[in-house]
Structure formats: structure tokens, C-alpha cells
């Protein structure tokens, strides 16, 4: 993978860091001059991934969340969100729209649906007891198009 630019950061699984992660993503991808809609899509997808790590990955516990943001050739944005939490027993089921294990917290079960629909590619790898890694990519529209 040819990487034009990259930042990595790590943060504790505090819900206040949901907005901090979005702010960092905005600051990084602005160099690629995204449209307002593209920026909003990416911010929303990152917010979902980080919230999943906090609410589900580290449910009842705490830990660190590692983010990697990359700018790839052809105006492609790559984002990886990794937690070392409890992992997902059945990733396929977890990705079904409206499936949630936290209805009492009013989680709608739409996190992965938002990531899938707002990004071009989504990959979720998880191991029980070891954590979950969400990787997303989105190609920004060519300038002038």
C-alpha cells in the first residue's frame, strides 16, 4: 500500500474522545480538500467506529483505542480503528442492521450500517477476548468533478 501521509494516535476509551477523534479526522483529511458531504460522511463513520469500541469493545471496562489515518493515492482515505476489548462473537450478526446488544443505552444497532453506507469499503476483524479492528476506505471525488 503506497501511503502519501499518515497519522497515528491512541486515546483512552472515554466517551469525550468521540468528538476528539472526529476533530482529528477532520484536521487530517482537510489536506485532501473533501467536499462538505464527504467530510461529514467520514466524520460520521469514524464516530460510529470509536463509539462501538467504547460502548461494546470496552463495555464495563476501559482500555485504549488506536487510530490510523492515511491518505492514499487517487484521493483515497484509509481509516483503521482498533480496540483491545472483548471482541465480537459473531461479526456477521453484529453487522446486521438494527442488531444491538445495548438497547438499554438506546443504541440503535445502525453503527455498522452507517459505516457501510457512508464509506466505500468496510472490513471488521475481531477475536473474542482480544479486540476488534475496523478498517474503512473512501475515495474522494476527483477535483472539478
Amino acid at each position, binding site marked *: 500500500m503506497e501511503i502519501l501521509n499518515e497519522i497515528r494516535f491512541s486515546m483512552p476509551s472515554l*466517551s*469525550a474522545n*468521540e*468528538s476528539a477523534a*472526529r476533530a482529528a479526522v477532520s484536521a487530517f483529511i482537510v489536506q485532501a480538500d473533501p467536499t*462538505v*458531504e464527504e467530510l*461529514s460522511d467520514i*466524520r*460520521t463513520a469514524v*464516530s*460510529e467506529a470509536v*463509539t462501538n469500541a*467504547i*460502548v461494546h469493545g470496552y463495555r464495563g471496562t476501559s482500555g485504549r483505542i488506536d487510530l490510523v489515518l492515511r491518505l492514499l493515492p487517487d484521493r483515497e482515505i484509509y481509516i483503521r480503528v482498533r480496540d483491545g476489548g472483548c471482541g465480537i462473537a459473531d461479526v456477521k450478526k453484529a453487522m446486521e442492521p438494527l442488531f444491538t446488544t445495548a438497547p438499554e*443505552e*438506546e*443504541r*440503535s444497532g*445502525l*453503527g455498522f*450500517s*452507517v459505516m457501510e*453506507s457512508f464509506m466505500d469499503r468496510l472490513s471488521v476483524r475481531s477475536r473474542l477476548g482480544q479486540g476488534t479492528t475496523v478498517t474503512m476506505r473512501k475515495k474522494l471525488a476527483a477535483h472539478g468533478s
Partner: protein
Amino acid sequence: MKVDIKSENGMAIAALRGEIDHHSAKSAREQLDSFIINMQPDVLSLDMSGITFMDSSGIGLIMGRHKLMRECGGRLEVRGPQESIRRVLRLAGIERIVRII
């Protein structure tokens, strides 16, 4: 997120400002629920024109208030969301359940 609620003759408007995520939804939820339970309005209108960001936490916030308003014999509606917010609402199919103006 800031919540500012005004009420007159059973019609209440809650102006929401800022960003809705899992972190900010919690206090908004508590504020709105306390108002609904104490004031029992006929209609609660969530004015979302001042919301600049919303992820799926906003869907839970709206659906939870919709359910509580119904249980209290009232109705919830959503007003003025920006286009980026409307896209999240559409994805969730909220417009089939809650009136969006």
C-alpha cells in the same frame, strides 16, 4: 450539545444545538425525559436546525423520545435538520415513524 425547551399550551419546542453523539446524547436524554414526564406535552417538537453533527446515537435519542411521548399520550416531531443529519435519518427510516418538517 445544548437543549433549550420552551412550552406553551401543550406544545413544546426543544431547540438542540451542537453535536449529537453517544457522549452528548446522555444528558440531552435526561433533560428531555424529565421535561416529558413532568410536563406531559401534547406535542414535543425537536428543533434540530442547530445540530451540526449527528451519528446513529441521534437515532436512539429520537426513537427513545418518540416512544416516551407515545406512552404519555403525546407525539414527537423533528424540525429543520440539515442535509447531513437528514441522510442519517433517512438511513434509519425515521421518517416512516416520526414526522420530519
